[in-house]
């Protein structure tokens, strides 16, 4: 009886003062660029991770251990991402890595993570066509952003002619390929799809905007699907505004423009243009209000929240729960525990981690408002992320299931696993 009481009180003590048991720190690697071209986007995510880790430590850490953030700076240099990832896994011996933004940086760390059996949470919308055993993709796959946005264009706005404008790199290329194929399956003729690629940081948009306007000459309603990245958007939207193109005439839906990007712009002339994400700051839920308040308190009142931040929020909390469920931070155990993890979205509803390492999340479409925010005009139910798109013939026959099939690239026609490592 006495021992039981002592044990109970010891347990109480342990739960009440978890920070004391700090000799068993769990290390969380943060692999986001803090300098170079991508620092603009990734620094925010580093701060998000630090905030999440602090919040978790205040709640008592994980497994009674304190979480320790290990921040490194891969400096927007893609080979350096691989080097830093190796350093995190072998020298710092972190239990999990949250990081990367660009696809090429992800492709750079993939071989390292797979070789050393690490665990990476990748928070940004991406082009899909990949499923690594060691990566959880908490951003949107094309069917969670591009396809629903295109459906919205087709069904809600009645667009008959499409201009797919993108920056010349892998995400827009693959996304546009998928969309071209998807649109043709929806009876949009190939001639009614105009595709253009511009370099990073492009600033001379007059010709392209004029080309888009000229598309309207055959009397069909024109819409623009933009995968233009980063700074180039500023010149693009300025030219769009100068040409007097209202969202009622030629709507533009962007996949890479969020609250952060709009803060470098005067949005008065852009009201009504669209963006598709899984999260908008304007989502009216209580958890979102708390989240925004905590962020602003930590970072300053003028800071905004965005979609990749929510992806880290969900990813991190799922990982914490998975570690608790597995009772260890060991990668293989955590991975198994991750499947089926559920966590509430900031926008309402519940995100679920699927066996293909993608999330089921709702898709939101928002219209730009004058204050640089988005007015949510459409919100779907949870859409299951698809690693291999159904709209390209080669990948339609592929599927990913790490839970039962143990394969990220499984050919459903030949019923065989193409490869267990990912394609990089």
């Amino acid at each position, binding site marked *: 009886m006495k021992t039981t009481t002592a044990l109970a009180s010891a347990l109480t003590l342990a739960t009440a003062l978890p920070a004391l048991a700090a000799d068993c720190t769990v290390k969380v690697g943060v692999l986001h660029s803090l*300098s170079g*071209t991508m*620092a*603009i986007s990734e*620094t925010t995510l580093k701060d998000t991770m630090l905030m999440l880790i602090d919040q978790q430590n205040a*709640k008592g850490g994980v497994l009674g251990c304190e979480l320790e953030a290990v921040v490194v700076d891969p400096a927007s240099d893609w080979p350096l991402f691989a080097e830093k990832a190796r350093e995190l896994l072998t020298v710092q011996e972190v239990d999990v890595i949250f990081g990367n933004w660009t696809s090429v940086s992800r492709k750079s760390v993939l071989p390292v993570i797979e070789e050393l059996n690490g665990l990476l949470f990748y928070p940004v919308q991406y082009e899909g066509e990949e499923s690594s055993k060691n990566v959880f993709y908490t951003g949107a796959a094309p069917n969670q952003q591009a396809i629903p946005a295109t459906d*919205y264009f087709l*069904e*809600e*706005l*009645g667009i008959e002619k499409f201009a797919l404008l993108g920056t*010349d790199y892998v995400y827009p290329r693959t996304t546009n390929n998928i969309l071209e194929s998807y649109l043709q399956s929806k009876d949009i003729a190939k001639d009614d799809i*105009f*595709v*253009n*690629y*511009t*370099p990073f*940081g*492009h*600033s*001379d948009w*007059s*010709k*392209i905007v*004029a*080309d888009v*306007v*000229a598309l*309207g*000459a*055959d*009397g*069909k309603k024109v819409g623009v699907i933009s995968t233009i990245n980063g*700074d180039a958007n*500023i*010149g693009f939207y*300025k*030219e769009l*505004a*100068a*040409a*007097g193109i209202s*969202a*009622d*005439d030629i*709507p533009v839906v962007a996949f890479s423009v969020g609250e*952060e990007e709009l*803060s*470098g*712009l*005067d949005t008065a*002339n852009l009201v*009504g243009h669209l963006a598709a994400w899984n999260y908008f700051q304007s989502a009216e839920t209580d958890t979102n209000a708390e989240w925004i308040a905590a962020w602003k308190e930590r970072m300053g009142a003028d800071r905004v929240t965005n979609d990749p931040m929510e992806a880290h929020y969900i990813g991190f909390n799922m990982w914490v729960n998975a570690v608790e469920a597995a009772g260890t931070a060991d990668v293989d155990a955590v991975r198994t525990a991750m499947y089926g993890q559920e966590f509430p979205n900031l926008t309402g509803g519940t995100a679920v981690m699927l066996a293909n390492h993608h999330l089921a999340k709702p898709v939101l*479409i928002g*219209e730009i408002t004058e204050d640089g925010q988005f*007015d*949510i*005009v*459409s919100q779907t139910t949870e859409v299951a992320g698809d690693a291999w798109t159904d709209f390209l013939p080669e990948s339609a026959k592929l599927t990913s299931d790490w839970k039962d099939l143990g394969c990220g690239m499984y050919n459903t026609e030949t019923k065989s696993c193409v490869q267990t490592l990912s394609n990089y």
Partner: protein
Amino acid sequence: MVIAPSPFDLPESPSLMKTLLLAALAALLLTNAAPAQTTPVQDILQSQSDLIMKSSRRTIGPAIDAIADSGLPQMQSVLEAWRAKDMWQRKSDGLFFAASKNDDGTLKLRSFEDNAVVGDVARNTLIQLKPNSGIRAMIATALVQFQLSDPDPTKRHAALDSISRDPDAALLAPLRASINGEDDAALLARKTRLNNLMTMTYDPDEASRVAAINAMAGDLGLDFRGTLNPLLITKMTVAKTGTTPDANVAAQLTPGTDALSRSAAYAILVDAGLAPPLVTQDARDDALRANIVAGYVADTPVAQLSTEAKRDAAYDALAAQSLAAPRVTDTDITVRLSEHQFFEVYAEPSPAVTTAAKAALAKSESRVAASQMVDLGLDALSLASIYFLAAIGLAITFGVMGVINMAHGEFIMLGAYTGYVVQLFVPNHTLSIIIAVPMAFAVTFAAGVALERLVIRWLYHRPLETLLATFGVSIALQQLAKNIFGTQARPLTSPTWLDGAWAINDVVSISYIRIAIFILALMFLGLFLFIMRRTRLGLETRAATQNPRMASSMGINTDRVNMLTFGLGSGIAGIAGVAIGLFAKVTSEMGGDYIVQSFMTVVVGGVGNIWGTLAGAAMIGGFQKGVEWLNPSNTLAAQTYMIVFIIIFIQFRPRGIIALKGRAAGD
């Protein structure tokens, strides 16, 4: 550790309390008022409530029709409120209200029946209706009939906007009816034009359609072409050889020509069920897989099927045993194609209309093509003026003085950030630009003078080292800007009078900001010529550059001249930075976008001659736009080809377009 919510928490949240009270109050008001009034508007809205709340363009039609066709006078304001996202539904009873936001965050509800204030309520007791722009367009169409003769001209404009966006046969009659009463000249012109355009498509009388088309033949307007092109939509039809389809035939196509390849023609026959499909590789392999018997497919061992030829042979063997459909041979295709004729048929039944439309459009096309050339020319001119503006400072420091300043791009950036900082303090955009231009000049002039005094003057005889030292300055300045302003792009907003574009017609237009940059470039050209040719500084600069020793023995203080000239060149780069920031972006890396191009401009044009720089900018800008025109889907290629072109060009004219002759040409 999580505390479950309990009823005792209530007093802690006064807003919730207030909400409840307000809701109760509102309910009280409603129950008192409701029986006394008839509510026809609310009744109609309630009858369509499900569709309205579903808020999808595909299903909303009947609801909008019911509201618009109800004949109730209030419906115009209902539709207007709905479109402006001012219509809200009360969660408690599902009633719809117009609402406006109060300063304290609550909403002021108004009844649709009589616009009477119902009361102030908390936001979370209501659901805002957010019609998407597709629905808003439909509401706008429904509003047209109310607005065409509205006393407010802006509403009449809105109605016409709506018609031109979504023309509809039903709108033709109201539009025509409103023309007579129109007293505003601009509106009358728009109405007449719209009437013409809609007549082409929707008028039942063929003759008046043809007349309308002929009346506007050759018009450049996007709306005109957008009206005619749908009339000329064709579709492919197949007929047995010897017969012609009973329709408005546009053309007959022969298989095997550019317009219709043999394979495409055969595919049409397959789609129409008039020919058996081709056996694809996948289908062939599926058949082979399905017919494996004990490791053999039609007497061929499976292990041997590792070439296309073997697989074809095995499949043919299967086909011979009737285990698979025979492959379609080339002869089969020829036979099938000879049995059929292919026609392009207009969807529009009237040949008179299609003939007139075709002729009218052909007349437009040549003018459109010419206009597109003009537009491209304007784009090229604009790009050239941007390159010129970015390079003109360099034409002074590099062209005249021979100093390689790799930090030139950072001076451009410095100017742009100066503009941004000025805008932080001077919110009026016009005033801030007027202040920013001289400020930018002053800041970069000072930076230039400092750079010249501290670094460059020690290196006048070691040009390659100048290049490296100024590169050091360049990376330091860039990082410094990042440390101060962050990596995020900063807004530099142009004054409203520079918003918008100068549209000559629907094809040729150029934004005002680009025109301003063009004018600025011209002004700098004039300034440069003036300073170099008409001022003492210019004379001294030229003297000091051509022969520094001789110049100083003539009493010219070459030190001072070099300093001032370098400062001038840097100052102009700063002003260019403001202009570039206005039209593109302000980031710490913007300098890098222009530095290489600027050097190219100066080198291609010919060092030491401002006209050369002008020619260089014109050539590079023109060439780049030319390539973009040839290959509109890949702007990156245009830039690549431009660089390659420059490299080759310099091989043949190493001294640039306008080369200095004689001694001045010496390195």
